[in-house]
């Protein structure tokens, strides 16, 4: 009796990750064809519309870039922690915490001029996201509490904090009883760049580039990778693991908080409970596809932004926008599978040989 086993290749296939990503995209598009035909739509027309709406014109690009901003910053947040082997599953909540911080500043600084107010709001967003990550960071660094679950739990807490605020103290007295926060003041919005794109696109690009440089060119980034690959090596090298874990998780939370601040000031008129809209979870997929590298995060975020915007555009054709949600998950599953085959190959072994090898 023979059975298939995965055997490690001597050499990882070259260009593995971009290739795996391409395979993932292909898998997603093929499954998408099946789903679209299943619901009685012409897949080619739907894909054409998705492409036109997301990348087909400068206006389409501007909308896609706006969407790539929260995805890229959330992805960066996850990647910063991930490069040290830590999981920040709490970006979703930290985005909300960032939006709370920014809204709070907008409320106390109502009369401030834009050039003061907007940076203050963004700074408060960073602080808000960092504060939400502080508890899990301290718990992980000091007593080794698993950060995956603590950050995950705080997502739900932050969401409810926003609900509580907009049902209570932050409720707009002119909202006719609806649980809505008041609109942000006009000077509390990010200026436009071109078409619909706002300045947050540049800001996110700069932040991602800076982290990319820090990760590859500075001692800080090097220490991070050492600490991530082996705690023992890091201790020999005199790197304080406790402090590294603490700062990395808080910085990660701050970056996710910034995503919330930019999304609020750039793409929303007020804080709502739907502000984060799954960006934090999508950011985990983005970071995983980018292998936790900041440069890759920007590219993957752009593609995911295009898929999301394309997905919204096909609703007018009567296609459920859930198709784009499904595509995003399938890109990742396809890429994981392709990634496995770039490192392993399938070999048939006879049952006896398998027993002997084991």
């Amino acid at each position, binding site marked *: 009796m023979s059975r298939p*086993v*995965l*055997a*490690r290749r001597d050499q990882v296939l070259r260009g593995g990750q971009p290739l795996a990503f391409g395979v993932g995209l292909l898998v997603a598009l093929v499954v998408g064809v099946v*789903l679209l035909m299943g*619901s009685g739509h012409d897949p080619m027309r739907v894909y054409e519309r998705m492409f036109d709406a997301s990348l087909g014109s400068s206006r389409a690009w501007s909308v896609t870039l706006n969407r790539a901003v929260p995805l890229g910053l959330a992805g960066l947040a996850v990647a910063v922690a991930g490069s040290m082997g830590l*999981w920040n*599953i709490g970006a979703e909540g930290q985005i909300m915490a960032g939006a709370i911080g920014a809204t709070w500043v907008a409320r106390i600084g109502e009369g401030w001029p834009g050039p003061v107010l907007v940076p203050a709001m963004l700074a408060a967003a960073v602080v808000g996201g960092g504060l939400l990550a502080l*508890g899990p960071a301290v*718990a992980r660094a000091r*007593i*080794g*509490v*698993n950060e*995956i*679950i*603590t950050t*995950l*739990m*705080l*997502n*739900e*807490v932050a*969401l*409810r*904090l926003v*609900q*509580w605020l907009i*049902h*209570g103290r932050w409720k707009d007295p002119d909202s006719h009883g609806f649980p809505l926060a008041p609109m942000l003041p006009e000077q509390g919005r990010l200026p436009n760049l071109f078409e619909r794109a706002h300045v947050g696109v540049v800001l996110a690009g700069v932040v991602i580039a800076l982290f990319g440089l820090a990760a590859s060119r500075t001692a800080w980034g090097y220490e991070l990778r050492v600490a991530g690959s082996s705690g023992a090596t890091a201790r020999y090298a005199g790197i304080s693991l406790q402090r590294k874990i603490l700062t990395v998780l808080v910085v990660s939370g701050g970056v996710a908080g910034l995503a919330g601040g930019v999304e609020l000031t750039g793409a929303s008129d007020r804080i709502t409970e739907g502000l984060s809209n*799954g960006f934090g*979870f*999508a950011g*985990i*997929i983005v970071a*995983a596809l980018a292998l936790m590298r900041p440069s890759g995060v920007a590219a993957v975020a752009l593609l995911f932004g295009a898929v999301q915007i394309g997905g919204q555009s096909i609703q007018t054709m009567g296609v*459920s926008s*859930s*198709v*784009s*949600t*499904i595509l*995003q*998950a*399938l890109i*990742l*599953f396809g890429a*994981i*599978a392709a990634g*496995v085959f770039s490192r392993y190959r399938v070999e048939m072994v006879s049952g006896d040989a398998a027993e002997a*090898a*084991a």
Partner: protein
Amino acid sequence: MTEASVIGLLEATVSFGALLYLAALGEMIAEKAGILNLGVEGMMAMGAVTGFVVALHTGNPWVALAGAVAAGAAVALLHGLFTVVMGADQVVSGLSLTILGIGLAAYLGKGSVGRPAGAELSSVDWGPLSDIPWFGPVLFQQSPFVYLAVVAGVVAWFVLGRTRLGLALRAAGESASTADAAGHSVAGLRLGAVAMGGALAGAAGAYLTLSLTPQWAEGIVAGRGWIAVALVIFGAWRPGRVALGSLLFGMTLALKTRLQTFGVDFSPILLSMLPYLLTVGVLVAISIRARNRPSPAPAALGIAYRREER
């Protein structure tokens, strides 16, 4: 505060508790075998939509339940394929399963939004037992799903703790190479546990659309899958404690709409944060105690096992 409102609260506590318990028990079984599955939210959504759609087409609630269980197990096996067979990261795969499950459920349920249920599983009548004051309405007029949860809990407790299969499953979660050396198929045990977890999550989803709500809407799971993940930790990976935790967290869900009835001036939104904050507290307590005694978490939880690289 009237007697009727207290009975109503307890009745809702038991039914919400059973909902959470079904999903949490499934997650616990998968984690016992060493696989963390953060896809509960997506698996529940798939169970919910499948149960509802099958009920619409067949009119038979039991066939609908079977469909939901099969759907939950099927998507769970996708997680199994990636984490057990391919050794992919469990966190990434599980979260992707949540996203995929929610998206796929929305796609499949698009035509069913707002339609009345094709079939329902209504409360069981236990004859004279149902007429006992207090105990009758709270324990003996519940949906079949509540009794299913109780049976599943007892079976899980027995199989995990008292049988060879349970021993092998726990070994796969504590030390996969030891289980392998003892002649067990680690991959088979883990895949089975993940599928079982998906089946129970699917049943929990069907409880929503065939009994509790009973309607289909996007977002119907509403974060309760995350509570199930929390409950496994809160209950220290033990079926009995997870059951007690389910009742406690179920009571916070039941209280949400009833605080005003009881004249309590406290925000129901803040109350709904409680399960998550309590779980964080329990995790911290476990870690502090772990300095003196072993953590209750399965030792190999989250770690892929490749036989060829042992």
